[in-house]
């Protein structure tokens, strides 16, 4: 459409209307496109909304974290499987009550330590704990006692840990004392902090199912020997992976009693406190790769020790790269908050073992803590869990204790967004948009003195993104539709406006006709501004029409009005002639008569245009051959104008014309008159008849002065002449006007041009031929 308009513009450089058409359409289109600001603004709004939502979500997430953390306040039983106390009051009086200290007996493994903060409650008094320590030690002595033979044999201790076991304990003590709570104490040399496992490792002695986390390993060395220990918790099970460096592993003699020192090979001791605080030890001895049996040493009635298998603990042995690997599984329900491993290394079966590890070799006392959350913590967290959330509890050291994860679970909001929505999302989203939100809060101890852990809540952005996407999609869709509608409407409106304007322009351009001015104007009935313009035009044209009508009839009216007084003059003169005037007066009489004759011929000429129009209107059309008509007419001009020569170029074939031959001849007469008037005496006037398919050209060439350019357009207008009067004949410029009228009557046109080299003029009439 724009090319068409442009083409029109090129074709009509002066056409103001087309220029308006282009700019109007373009302008309105641009206006329509301005509505595209809406979606742009909308996306900005959506982003702001999103960040507001995000902030709100962050706040509420913080509140959630805070409230869950508060609900976990002091819950060391959940976080660290500390024995449950009976409330703060009971704890305070626990100094006297024996059961309570028994529960808090875990630090009892270190009798030398003051164990001030052993109680769950940070406020537990030193006196209370010390008593607790005493009892627990008492309890613990029994198993240690049984283990003592082995423990005694294992005199050389690990140089890093056991080598200064007392020192390490001494290290722990002030730490605990200062914090007032064991859970917040820095990890001791023998403390174990299990990983929170994603899946249960298969107990086969291979480390395949374990996470690759070198930092989680604890290493204990004893000379060339040593072992690494990795612990993990999954559900209600504690898993232990041991990687022992041992160049020479000695299996047990398969058929001998496990307690027979002579049959003993390498042994692994697992020491732990039970939930009630008593210490227990089990040992594993392998007689070949494969599963291991846990055994416990039980003192019989006659002081005889027997090895009883412990089926709840399972294990497996496999050779490793530098020694062997042992994988163990212990139900958490069996284990309290202490756990450790001791290796009895023998180079020969039945030899005195080298004991090193995390148990005190003398009495197999478990020196290290097991910092693991209760399995109930996960259950507790799970009750707060929602799709898209992850709840995690970590120890103050940063190590995770428990984690309930539902991040990957889809939120219940909305189905998968459509193509458009995805497009919008891509458009609006910023890089950080999809980062999940995290909020964390400290879990404090009972006295709100120091944190015992951190609770972190993570939430995916999906929830509010979905919310935002919904709003955004709806908004963008509606603005898109609005824009499209607005643009289409504006385009239609512009096109209609342009159409109306061009109609108005065409009407105003063609308002001036031969019959007068057209006053029936388009758009005059429209109630808008364009209608006003059209009505203004119409009124103007109406007035102009009246005026031109007056002008047009002026000549005729004037002629008519002059005719009567002229008749009076002429008839009076004629009468006067008969009255016998003197010969001298006769001269004047003749002059007066000549004058009146001229006046009369002027009047005739003035009325000629009207008469020609009447004659044309009344002309009858016939089909005739143009060639003989022109030939016969040209033949007669030699007599009429003896001072000019006439030549005719006529085609051989007939040219059929539907029209009036009389008028054609009259037209040719006028063209010849004109040619004679503008050519010097003796010149040759050439009449040429050419035929093209369905078109006949009648051309009259005369030598003489060329036509001035400004003259050519007006030549064929009524009452127009450019010549200076050279003779007495009245010239009213009607000749070429009549040519035009007759040409138009035949459906043709008349035109004038200069001959090549400006040697003269050529007048052409184009007539449609049959």
């Amino acid at each position, binding site marked *: 459409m724009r090319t068409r308009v442009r083409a029109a513009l090129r074709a009509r450089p002066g056409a103001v209307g087309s220029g308006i058409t282009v700019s109007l359409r373009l302008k309105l289109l641009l206006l329509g496109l301005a509505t595209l600001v809406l979606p742009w603004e909308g996306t900005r709004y959506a982003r702001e909304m999103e960040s507001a939502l995000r902030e709100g979500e962050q706040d509420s997430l913080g509140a959630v974290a805070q409230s869950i953390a508060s609900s976990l306040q002091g819950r060391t039983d959940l976080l660290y499987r500390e024995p449950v106390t009976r409330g703060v009051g009971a704890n305070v009086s626990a100094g006297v009550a024996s059961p309570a200290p028994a529960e808090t007996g875990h630090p009892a493994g270190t009798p030398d330590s003051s164990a001030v903060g052993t109680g769950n409650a940070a406020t537990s008094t030193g006196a209370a704990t010390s008593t607790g320590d005493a009892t627990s030690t008492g309890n613990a002595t029994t198993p240690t006692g049984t283990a003592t033979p082995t423990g005694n044999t294992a005199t050389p201790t690990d140089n890093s840990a056991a080598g200064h076991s007392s020192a390490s304990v001494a290290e722990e003590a002030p730490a605990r004392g200062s914090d007032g709570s064991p859970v917040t104490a820095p990890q001791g040399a023998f403390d174990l902090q299990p990983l929170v496992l994603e899946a249960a490792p298969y107990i086969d002695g291979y480390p395949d199912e374990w996470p690759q986390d070198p930092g989680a390993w604890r290493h204990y060395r004893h000379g060339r020997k040593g072992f690494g220990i990795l612990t993990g918790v999954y559900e209600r099970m504690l898993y232990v992976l041991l990687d022992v460096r041992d160049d020479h592993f000695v299996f047990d003699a398969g058929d001998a009693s496990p307690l027979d020192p002579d049959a003993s090979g390498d042994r692994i001791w697992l020491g732990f406190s039970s939930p009630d605080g008593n210490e227990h030890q089990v040992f594993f001895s392998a007689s070949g790769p494969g599963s291991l049996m846990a055994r416990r040493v039980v003192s019989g009635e006659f002081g005889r020790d027997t090895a009883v298998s412990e089926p709840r603990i399972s294990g497996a042995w496999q050779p490793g790269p530098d020694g062997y690997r042992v994988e163990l599984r212990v139900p958490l329900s069996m284990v309290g908050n202490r756990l450790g491993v001791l290796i009895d290394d023998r180079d020969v079966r039945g030899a005195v073992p080298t004991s090193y590890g995390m148990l005190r070799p003398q009495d197999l006392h478990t020196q290290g803590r097991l910092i693991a959350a209760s399995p109930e913590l996960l259950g507790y967290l799970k009750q707060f869990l929602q799709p898209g959330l992850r709840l995690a509890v970590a120890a103050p050291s940063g190590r995770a204790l428990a984690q309930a994860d539902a991040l990957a679970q889809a939120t219940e909001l909305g189905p998968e967004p459509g193509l458009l929505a995805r497009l919008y999302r891509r458009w609006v989203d910023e890089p950080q948009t999809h980062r999940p939100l995290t909020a964390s809060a400290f879990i404090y101890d009972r006295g709100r003195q120091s944190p015992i852990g951190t609770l972190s809540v993570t939430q995916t952005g999906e929830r509010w993104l979905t919310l935002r996407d919904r709003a955004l999609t709806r908004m963008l869709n509606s603005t898109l539709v609005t824009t499209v509608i607005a643009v289409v409407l504006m385009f239609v409106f512009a096109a209609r406006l342009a159409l109306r304007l061009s109609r108005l322009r065409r009407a105003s351009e063609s308002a001036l006709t031969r019959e007068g001015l057209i006053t029936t104007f388009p758009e005059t009935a429209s109630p808008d501004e364009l209608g006003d313009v059209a009505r203004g035009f119409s009124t103007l044209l109406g007035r102009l029409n009246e005026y031109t009508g007056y002008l047009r009839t002026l000549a005729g009216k004037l002629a008519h009005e002059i005719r009567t007084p002229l008749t009076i003059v002429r008839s009076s003169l004629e*009468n006067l002639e008969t009255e016998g005037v003197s010969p001298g007066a006769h001269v004047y009489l003749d002059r007066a008569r000549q004058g009146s004759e001229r006046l009369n011929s002027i009047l005739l000429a003035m009325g000629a245009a009207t*008469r*020609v129009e009447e004659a044309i209107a009344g002309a009858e059309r016939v089909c005739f051959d143009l060639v003989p008509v022109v030939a016969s007419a040209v033949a007669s001009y030699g007599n009429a104008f003896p001072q000019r020569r006439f030549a005719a170029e006529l085609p051989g074939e007939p040219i059929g014309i539907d029209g009036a031959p009389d008028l054609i001849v009259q037209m*040719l007469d006028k063209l010849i008159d004109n040619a004679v008037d503008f050519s010097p005496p003796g010149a040759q006037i050439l009449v040429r008849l050419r035929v093209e398919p369905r078109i006949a050209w009648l051309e009259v060439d005369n030598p003489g002065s060329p036509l001035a350019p400004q003259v050519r357009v007006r030549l064929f207008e009524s009452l127009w002449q450019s010549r200076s009067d050279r003779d007495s004949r009245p010239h009213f410029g009607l000749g070429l006007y009549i040519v035009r009228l007759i040409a138009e009557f035949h459906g043709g046109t008349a035109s004038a041009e200069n001959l090549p080299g400006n040697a003269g003029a050529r007048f052409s009439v184009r007539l449609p031929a049959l």
Partner: protein
Amino acid sequence: MKRLVAIVEDEPAIRENYAAAFTREGYTVRAYGNRDQAMTAFASRLPDLAVIDISLEEEPEGGFELCRQLRALSAELPIIFLTARDTELDAVSGLRLGADDFLTKDLSLAHLIARVNALFRRVDALRRPHEATQVVRRGPLTLDPERMQIEWEGQVVLLSLTEFWIVFALARHPGHVKNRQQLMDAANVVLDDNTITSHVKRIRRKFQAIDPKFDAVQTVYGMGYRWVD
């Protein structure tokens, strides 16, 4: 007895000038300024010839009405329209109402009087017994210059005086081309080309009313017309 010519013309100066000219020619002249005066006078005595203007004082078309009334009183009375109006329509209307000629005021007094004389001659000739001697016969055409009457295939063709003279000029010398000027001279009129053309057209139409195949008046383009037997 002098012939009575009635002049009905609202312009006093013209009226008087015409009256003087006719009087000089030996006619008795009665001049009227409007239709009522004229009709009152005509009721008592009919003139021998009437020269009528079309627009009469308040009546723009009064002459036509007067012509109709006069024609009702007498079928033979020669009536000439002499008017400043020269449109084709006026001429056709005037002649259709039974006027013998339709002349414009460009016509000189001498030409006017020549016509009046000719009309009187025709009236006289019509009154006399028919003399066949002067009659020209060319095929179906019978031309009586005395009575200024033309018959085609035995039927009278009702032509105005101007038309008769044009046909007469053409038919007297069949095959000879008469140009427009010659025809104007023969008809004692000064007309422009278009008026001659429309006269010829009317003549053809009147003949064709009798004989649709009439084709005796031929146009020689650029020159004029000729009669073909």
